[in-house]
Every structure is written in structure tokens, then in C-alpha cells.
């Protein structure tokens, strides 16, 4: 009872018409951990993210979120994406989905939305509480930009950022929602080796601050060096789980990967 996992998913199943994209999947993430979810293309990793964040409604399965430090267990089943984010799951997208006509700073400020309150009245009358809140949004957002190394770009339109910086901005935006668990969907995809090293440092730094992370990634070097535990899936099924060392030696994993092209 003392160490409940932050995220506890059991029996998650997702059917698209006749295709079973997720098949009774179990997965858990403990507080402070970096957990990787790997598998060949089309294995169902992104679908898993979409199911637990409320973008898809899974066919079956339970998703539980437990705030660390003895918080009460919350069921995420049937919640809308914004409610899931409010409860503490925040994600990035495999295909970058920034608000391209907003500035970098504004993108992060959007992340603060679910932690702030001002509404029509506050917007029009700008009472003291609203002004303070707005100030807080700006300060927090700017601090997060500094953390991910994008402060110089604060006033640039998001669409004008280089590719690697856009991926970082996605992380910054997700961090702004103060997640219990950060979900990263292939954050290194399309990055050059240098950018990937920078990303590795960033993820390590965020993790050191106590942030739990669930990571989907194809870059095996990155996965092996970052993760505490790894889940491997293929055709919607979990085929292995364990420490990086165990996974490296697991015959089922080797077979799944040898059947496919490994993009290292």
C-alpha cells in the first residue's frame, strides 16, 4: 500500500473496427521513474497514449492515477482529454502539434490554462486577482522556457522554430500543466545526433527534479540510457517488460525487432 504506482493501467484494449490495436495491456509507472514504451512501428504505442489521455475511448480496461504521497486513487476512465490533463497526465505529440500562430511564450502559457481560473469577468475588469494570476502565468511560463533552453525564442512564432526546438517546446508546454506524469511520444524523432544529446540532458534534468516520465522512443541508445524500466509491445500486446539489461537479452524482443527494420 505504501508505494502505489502513479499510473496503473490494466487490461487496456482498443479496437478499431476489426483491428485490435491494443490487446489487454498492463502497464504501471512509479513516482520518479522514467519508463520507456517501445515496439515496432504500428505496435500501438501512440494509440496507448491516446487511450489513457482520453482522446480515444478504450474498448476495455482500467486506468488509475494516484497522486504521490498518499493521494486518493483517481479513475481516468471516460474522462475528456482536458479533464485527464487537469488530473495530471500531460503529453507531447509524435506529429508536432504546436499552436503555430502563437508565440513560443504563449504556447507555454496555454499549458497554464488548467491551473488558472480567470474568466469573462476577470478578463474584462482585470481585477487584482486576475492581474496577479496573469503575472504568475507569465513568470511560470518564462521559467519553464528557461529550463528547456528556449527563453531566447520567447517572442517568436512557434512555427518559425527549428524542428528540434519545436519538440522542446512541446515538452515545455506539457510541463506547464504541472503533470504528475509526463508522456513523451517519440521526442527524438527527426532530431540530429546533437539535438538528441541535448534532449537526453533535458529529460534527465526534468527527471532529477522528481518528474515521472513515460517515454515512447525508437532511438535505442536514448531508451537504454534513460529508462529505469522498459515495456515492449508488438501488435498491440505486451511482449516483455523489465530493466534495460533484461530487455536487451530478451529473445522475444530480439525476434520482434529482427522481424522489422530497427531505426537506431
Amino acid at each position: 500500500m505504501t508505494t502505489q504506482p502513479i499510473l496503473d493501467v490494466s487490461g487496456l484494449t482498443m479496437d478499431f473496427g476489426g483491428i485490435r490495436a491494443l490487446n489487454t495491456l498492463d502497464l504501471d509507472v512509479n513516482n520518479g521513474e522514467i519508463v520507456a514504451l517501445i515496439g515496432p512501428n504500428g505496435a500501438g504505442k501512440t494509440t496507448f497514449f491516446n487511450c489513457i489521455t482520453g482522446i480515444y475511448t478504450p474498448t476495455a480496461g482500467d486506468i488509475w492515477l494516484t497522486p504521490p504521497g498518499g493521494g486518493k486513487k483517481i479513475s481516468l476512465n471516460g474522462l475528456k482529454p482536458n479533464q485527464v490533463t487537469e488530473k495530471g497526465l500531460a503529453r507531447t505529440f509524435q506529429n508536432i502539434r504546436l499552436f503555430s500562430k502563437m508565440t513560443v511564450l504563449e504556447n507555454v502559457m496555454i499549458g497554464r490554462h488548467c491551473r488558472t481560473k480567470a474568466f469573462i469577468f476577470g478578463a474584462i475588469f482585470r481585477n487584482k486577482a486576475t492581474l496577479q494570476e496573469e503575472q504568475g502565468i507569465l513568470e511560470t511560463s518564462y521559467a519553464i522556457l528557461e529550463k528547456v533552453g528556449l527563453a531566447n525564442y520567447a517572442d517568436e512564432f512557434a512555427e518559425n522554430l527549428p524542428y528540434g526546438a519545436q519538440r522542446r517546446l512541446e515538452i515545455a508546454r506539457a510541463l506547464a500543466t504541472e503533470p504528475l506524469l509526463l508522456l513523451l511520444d517519440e521526442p527524438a524523432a527527426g532530431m540530429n545526433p546533437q539535438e538528441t544529446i541535448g534532449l537526453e540532458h533535458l529529460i534527465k534534468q526534468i527527471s532529477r527534479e522528481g518528474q515521472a516520465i513515460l517515454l515512447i522512443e525508437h532511438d535505442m541508445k536514448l531508451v537504454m540510457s534513460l529508462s529505469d524500466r522498459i515495456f515492449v509491445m508488438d501488435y498491440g500486446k505486451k511482449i516483455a517488460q523489465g530493466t534495460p539489461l533484461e530487455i536487451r537479452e530478451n529473445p522475444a524482443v530480439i525476434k520482434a525487432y529482427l522481424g522489422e527494420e530497427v531505426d537506431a
Partner: protein
Amino acid sequence: MGLLKELKKGVLISLWFVFLTFPVMVIKVDPIARTVVWRWANALYMAVGTFFIYFLVQFFLRKKENRKETNDSKEQTLSFIHRILQDRLQRNILIGVVAVVAVFFPQFLSAYQTNVMTTALMYVVLGLGLNIVVGLAGLLDLGFVAFYAVGAYTYALLNLHFGLGFWAVLPIGGLIAATFGILLGFPVLRLRGDYLAIVTLGFGEIIRLILENWGQFSKGPSGISNISRPGFFGIEFSLQSSIIYTYYLMVLLVLVTIFVVNRLQDSRLGRAWIALREDEIACQAMGIDKRKTKLVAFSLGAFWAGIMGVMFAAKTTFVNPASFTFLESAIILSIVVLGGMGSIVGVLFGALILILMPEYLRALSQYRMLAFGAILVCMMVFRPQGLISNIRRTYTFKKKTTSSLCR
């Protein structure tokens, strides 16, 4: 590209235009003498004119492209208006000039001109309202006129049956229209883009058809007349002074609307609207309640339309369903698009140009609407982003101020 190829294209386009305008420009039927006059000279003018305009357009497009290439590395090219608005002194001078013109307008110009200006100002407010829905939240609404109608009929009916005055109904009309905004919002929450446009279009027509056919309720196509003009603490005005009073009232309403809309778009809510416009899924994933945000956009937009509806009924003292056709929605939408989506200054210009231009094009008599259409086409060709494009908003907050620049 080869000059010859360009020439050939120019000739073909001119011929096409001659063909298109043939029935209007060349054939003239004299119904009394029962003869057809063939004005071949017109076809020639048309051909030559189109040919030249085509090359003029090509020339400017080239120039624009070249400029883009050379300026690409620099800051985004600011428009003239932006430059003025960013300089504090120039901005204050501009505001001063506009204020003086606005205050003395009715003194120096005729009642007719004042009336036209009042109408233009009404469209400014309508445009600003629709701008919340289309420009900020990115929800293409083709039935905006429905809320305008709701406001107008709210006043007309309350005035007719209960004798309620303008000032009492002004907020009521706004709130009822806002309620209708929510009613429309619910069924279209899941729709976007084209689908949303079609449903809202249908909604606008439904409201108009109800007003037209439910005679007991709305007096049908003949409409409701003798609606009270706006009063001032019980004082009744003569027609002349009422026109002037209405004008100043409109100026005041425009100022209030600009103030409120500016604050709205520059807030947590305004950012949520823009995020919703940019990417709905990412927006939700960042914790924004899509339903709530959309409904608020619909209802706030409708609110301003409702208020203007009340104003319209009070100004013309007569309403009938014919005032609320799809064309009205199209004009208001054009104001937003032409001015620049999401830009308050843009909507201001858009409304003034779109409403005043047809008035001042009367000199061209029967070619008025043709010229109007041509100007619209040209503007959209040369500035697809609208007159005033969206400006990047920068925040200076370390000095403990949350100021932000105009959009």
C-alpha cells in the same frame, strides 16, 4: 518565364472576360423599339482593359515576390498602420484625429451622411462580435445574422407588447441573443470548418423563415413598425436630433465594444480561443475545455449581434425578416476577413470600407456593385491575410506590467 507565354495567357484571359461579360456589355435590348443593339466597341474596351489589368496584377505580384525574398530574414514586414500604432506619439495623434473627426462629424455633414456613418459603426460592432467567433476561435459561422435578428425582434416585440424602452431592452436583447448563441453552440460542438459553416447557415435561414412565417408572433413579412427610437431620460427628440443622438450613441457603443473585445482577446480566455483555432486536439490535451470555450465564444459573439439588433430596430423604427438575409451574414463575414482575422483595427477598417464604399461609389451609378466586387477581389488577391494582419504579441512582464501590443 517567357514573355510570349505571358502574352498568350493575357490574351486568353481577356477573351474569356469578353465572353463572360458579353451579355451585359455588348448586347443591349431595346424593349420599346424591339431591337437589339450590338455594342461591339464595348467588347474591345473590355478586352484591352482586362489585358492591361492582367499585366498590372502580374507586375505587382512579381514585385511583391521579390520583396519577400529580400526581406525574408528581416522582421516580418509591418504594415503602415502597425508602424503608427507601435509608436506611442504617432498612435496618440492618430487617436486624437479620429476622435475629433468622430465628435464633429454630425456638425459638418448632413443628416444623411451621419445616418450612413451610424450604419457603418453598427457594422463595426457586428464585425467585432463575429471576430470573436471566426477570427479568434476559428469557428466559421455563416448564420451570424440570426442573432442580429433575435436582438432586433426582441426589441420590436417587447416595445410593441409591453412598451419597453430602448435602454431597458438593450441588455435584454444582448442576453437573449447570447442564449441563442449557446443554443446553436450545443449541436455544433463537434463540427468544424465546412460542416460547421453549413449548419450555421441553416440556423440563420431557420430563424429568418420562422420570423417570416409565424405571423401571429412576428407579424410575418410585413414586419413591425413604429418602434420607439432611443430615448434620453424620457426626452423625445425630433427626427434630426434623434439621428445625431443615435450617432453618438453608436460611437459610444463602438468604444465600449473595442474596449471589451480587446480585453477579452488579451486574456486567458482569448488565448484559449486562439489555441482552439490553431489546433483543437492539442488544445484539449493542454487542459482546455473545448465545449466551454466554444460556447462562450458563440454566446459572446451573439451578444454583440443582439445589442446591434436592438440598435437597428431603434434606428430604423421598423423591422421585417427581409433585413436579415444571408447577404447580411456574408457582409459581416467579409468585414472580418477583409480587415484581417482576429484584428480589432482590421475589423474597424473593414467595416468602414465595406459599408461606406458602396455609398461613395454611387457616382459610378449602375457600375457601383461591379466596382465594389472588383475592389474586394483585388484586395483579397493582394492581401489574403486581410488589411491588418495579426501581429505578434509580446509580453513585457519583468517590470511588473503585463502590457501587450495591439493585435
